[in-house]
């Protein structure tokens, strides 16, 4: 039986301006450990807002968010940051790497900021897995977009997070670079064949990925569809065709 790593319960979120548009309207959804879930929906459906609320990057107006059993929706800074960096990794469309730090320092940065001794062996292993062994001393600026996104992924993985939030991780990449990144996310969920785990148990992290690309969503175990701030339907074991068909249906509503 899998347990739930992120639980979003009846979350509402509106943004000031724009006549108080409700980005999320009573959304409840759970994400299980060691699974890969895609969040889809038309533009403005609230999928990024859902991701931000679930990840503790944004505070819901009402409702609760549990991250590995800890209620984070009412946490204040800097407690929220501390909770987030202990359990969460991020992979965003714009990579969000520090240009002035080398690849290696970027990968170790979250652990350093958390004040824990970085697990260098694991970080090296992660670098190898994302195919960037030997590029440790380069600057992000010297890498291609796909490589940069793999650095971002390595950084997310280096901290052994319980969940990785990915917001359009392939949005800025070409098809083959995007596919590599998705495969790596998939591998991360599948525990890299359990090589990286310290104990024998399954170590796969959960991945929650916002995307608008049906082909990307097809790498997931489950796809949640949002429209107008509500979850309208979901799909298990998706294929690109099924997702595309569902998107068309959702968008047409």
């Amino acid at each position, binding site marked *: 039986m899998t347990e739930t790593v992120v639980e979003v319960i009846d979350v509402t979120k509106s943004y000031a301006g724009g006549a108080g548009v409700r980005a999320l309207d009573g959304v409840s959804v759970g994400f299980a450990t060691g699974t890969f879930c895609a969040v889809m929906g038309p533009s403005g459906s609230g999928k990024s807002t859902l991701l*931000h609320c679930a990840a503790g*990057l*944004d*505070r819901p107006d009402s409702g609760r968010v549990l991250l590995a059993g800890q209620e984070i929706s009412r946490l*204040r*800074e*800097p407690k*929220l*940051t*501390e909770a*987030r*960096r202990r359990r969460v990794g*991020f992979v*965003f*469309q*714009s*990579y*969000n*790497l*520090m*240009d*002035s*730090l080398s690849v290696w*320092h*970027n990968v170790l*940065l*979250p652990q*350093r*900021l*958390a*004040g824990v001794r970085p697990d260098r062996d694991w970080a090296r292993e992660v670098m190898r897995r994302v195919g960037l062994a030997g590029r440790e001393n380069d*600057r992000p*600026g010297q890498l291609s977009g796909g490589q940069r996104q793999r650095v971002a992924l390595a*950084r997310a993985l280096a*901290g052994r997070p319980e969940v990785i939030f990915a*917001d359009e991780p392939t949005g800025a990449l070409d098809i083959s670079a995007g596919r590599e990144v998705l495969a790596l996310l998939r591998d991360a969920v599948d525990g890299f064949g359990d090589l990286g785990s310290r104990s024998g148990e399954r170590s796969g992290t959960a991945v929650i990925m916002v995307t608008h690309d049906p082909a990307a969503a097809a790498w997931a175990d489950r796809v949640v569809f949002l429209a107008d701030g509500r979850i309208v339907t979901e799909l298990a074991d998706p294929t690109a065709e099924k997702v595309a068909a569902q998107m068309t249906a959702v968008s047409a509503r």
Partner: protein
Amino acid sequence: MMRLALGTLRRHRGAYLGSFLAAFLAVALLAGAGLLLFSVLTAKPPADRFAAAAAVVSGDREVTLTTTKKKKKNKVKSKTKSERLTGAGTLPADLAGRIAAVPGVVDAVADYAFPVVFPVRGEDDAPVVGHGWASAALTPYTLREGRPPAAGEMVIDADLAARGGLSVGDQVQITTRTGVRSVRVSGVAAPDGRDGLAAQGALFLADRQVPAVSGLDGPTAIAVLAEPATDLAALRAVAGDAPVFTGADKVRGDLPGALPDYIGPISIFGFTIGITAFAAVFVLTGTVALGVRQRLRDLALLRTAGATPGQLRRLLGLESVVLAAVAAVPAMPVGVVVAGLVAARFRALGAVPAQFTVAFNVPVLICAAVAGVLVTFVAARIAGRRAVRIAPTQALTETATAPRGGMLVRVVAALVTAGGAVAVLIFVPLGGPLGMGMSFVSSALLLCAVAALGPVLARGLTAVVGRVAALGGVTGWLAGTVARAESRRVAAVAVPLVLMFAINATMLLNSSLLGELTGDEHAARSAPATAQVTGPGGLPLSVAGDLAALPGVTGAAATLPTRAIVAQGGKPEDYPSQGLFTAGREAAIDLDVRDGQLGGEGTFAASAYLVEQHGWRVGDEVPIWLADGYQVTLRLAAVYQRARGFGEMALPADLVAAHDPRGLVAAVALRYDGDVAAGIHQRWPALRVTPAVAAARAGDAQNQQGAWELMVVISLGFAAIAVVNTFAIAASSRRREYADLRLAGATAGQVHRMATREAAITVTVGLVLGAAVTAVVVGAFSTAQDGIFRLIVDPVTYGGMLAGIAALGMAAGALPIRAVLRRRDLPAVADDH
């Protein structure tokens, strides 16, 4: 193009604020200094003492030397150089009679003008000038009450009467170089419609008494009352070498002390304009460069849209012109205010005459605005020279970077300027009167070198400082690493700090070193004396002789401050000097004579500096012009070391007393045993006997004081703008970097700590470089003064400047970041696309 320029300016208002402020300050200062310079250049003499005369024949007012050099092809080149006298030359006593005989001349009135120490001074501390009663008609002064002076009487102007609360019948003590006299007020006179002339109080004695009281051997000027059609050529022929002035020039025949002297202010305001332009180009280049860096992506986008580098260059140039033109509008009235404030301060310091006013002149303001626009334009050209060559593809990348390179230009510029600085420090005798100005020039040159090599120097220093910072945990490490990676940014922010520290530290430390040395030398000079005797406004030389002759006095030395002129390479050069009278068997003054011996008929002594400058040797006969232009040849008898606060030459006291119109002893140093002081008090109640008196300020002290103050304020203003502005730009353009850090798990507090540590690294880099420049210049200056190498000179000033600039730097570094990023904020994921 114009629309695009206006559009970008409006959109990037924040980034341009710094450039705007710097351009504003530049125009305001240029306008202010320009107005001041214009005002001193066009300043009218305050009043025409000879208003009633048709022409004035004047005694010498300057020393003029003409040298002729034979060049190739039998060409003869002759150069004429002149130096103004501080006193007034006199005319032959019989000249007035000969002039009166010229056809058409109604009358020729001799004016014997001489400075008088009177109980009160005139309006705005104006000097009091004595005359013979006959010359009252030249202004004219007319009697308001009383009667013309008889022997032992005088007429004073109404202004002096009011200030001193004097009326007809009062007895007043007046002092001239010939002695102290008690004179009765016989009348009060005034020019038409006024109580007195501006800038000079007037006092008229009986004509018979004037030569004896003034000590003059002839009139200082002869005013000619003539019929309108009188032949000036005939007059000139009779006058011989003496200049004949007419119209507004007539005032040049007046006593120099009664005329405003604008030579000092002219050079100060000219210098100010130069410094302002230097600082403006320096600061504007930095801020405009940062502004351009912020917009690299924009520029790249324009390149993609087909703009050529030339078009981008024009765009940047146009933007800068618009920006500076807009800044100039409010800056011009501010410039007028600045001029008023500076004039007030200079009046208070006595660097300009009290009646000096700022003339308002629109063309000067427009010139300042145009100059400000030009300077901004040049700065934009320098800042954008490589940025405009950005590759179009840079628009597509996340972080646009300017084309690298240009290292050769930087290195060459740095070598040239640093070489210039070293040359100045080595070849200019910094111990001389040019020392302060030249040390400023060399620190400005070194600053240019630092600015040119900024990124390289910053990289090296941040590597070291960053490593130290890394010991302070993860935020320190992060700050050090980021700073090292972004050494250009560090350099851009640190260079203004270097400017601020180096300019002000060298000026303040050098002048405090000079002050200290002057004080030390003065103390050492007067060490042998038991007491110093001074009188209000000075005492006649005869009194000094009486003091020296008092029983119990074993040694005396009286000093009469004056200025004397010697020729150097065909150019008359004016030096502060002293008339020195010594008596007794023990020396009461210790000039630290290195060669020869003080005293002896027809001899003088000179400072080691002057002797070295002129290549004199003891025993040489040297022609010297005294304050009234009288030329005398004296034999160099001694070379002395302790010249600071004293003067470059020690001349025979009686000669100075006879040829400097003031000719009064400033202080008499006495060496005695027993109760001589009580005896002095009894005989001369007005004299003060003190253990020591403060060193006399060097001749140009008030001018220099004003100039340094002005420079410190200017450089502080510019540098503060540059620092705040560069920090603010750097901080706001890094929003994204901070957002990334937050996403990577940094708390807002950690980001703040990192930013603070980064600011600390930057400030440290700036101060280290500033201290290095200061060390070179102050070290060289100090070594040139007395052979001792000093770095800090004045720990309090040094520490205060370090702390003040560090505080400004830290505040400028930390506050903008606090504004960008509040502690309770959630990470901003609104990734800027």
